[in-house]
């Protein structure tokens, strides 16, 4: 989160810093850091939505839980891949 708040801070501070952020996000090292942060956020979000669906009483069985967990992995992997393509 500190990485993301830092980016927001810099990008809004001045036009110079906004362009610096654009420069920074074009470096391979920073893209990897950003992707790692966003992968965590994506997985947490998808797993969180699964919990909200479970709270509604959907899929509250052993089979449902296993299927939902697998689905969370697959959806997270796809979204992370898409974000990776987007960043590069």
């Amino acid at each position, binding site marked *: 989160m500190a990485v993301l708040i830092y980016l927001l801070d810099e990008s809004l501070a001045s036009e110079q810093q906004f362009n610096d952020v654009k420069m920074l996000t074009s470096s391979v090292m920073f893209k990897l850091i950003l992707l790692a942060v966003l992968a965590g*956020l994506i997985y947490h979000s998808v797993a969180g939505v699964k919990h909200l669906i479970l709270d509604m009483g959907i899929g509250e069985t052993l089979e449902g839980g296993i299927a939902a967990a697998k689905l969370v992995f697959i959806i997270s992997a796809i979204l992370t891949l898409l974000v990776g393509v987007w960043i590069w």
Partner: protein
Amino acid sequence: MVTTVTNLGRSGLSDWLIQRTTAVILVAYVIFLTVVIGSGDFQYAEWKSLFSQTWVRIFSLAALLSLAMHAWIGIWCVATDYLTSYVLNLKLGPFFGAKANILRLSFLAASAIVLFTYVVWGIQILWG
């Protein structure tokens, strides 16, 4: 009577509801930012004017406060589950097991400082 003293709502049911409510706000904000940033190649002026709009600032602050509450509840759950005398005794031995309370409270205090810093930092970005 000994009861919980470090969880956000001082009640499990309250924490449960706060965790869900803040989750919905956070996921909405993440989707909002994804759509905005994905909608085109931003220049500084557009980006700046977006965050100068009152509703964007309100939404951003709601997400930031949600983040702090959501993270506190999550961290509290992990800390009170695993940073206990039983677990530390088992995993690290009696020396750490005996110091579980001070270790857990230190960890929670450090987390609180980080989260409070995010909130103040965010307010400064949005209105500074």
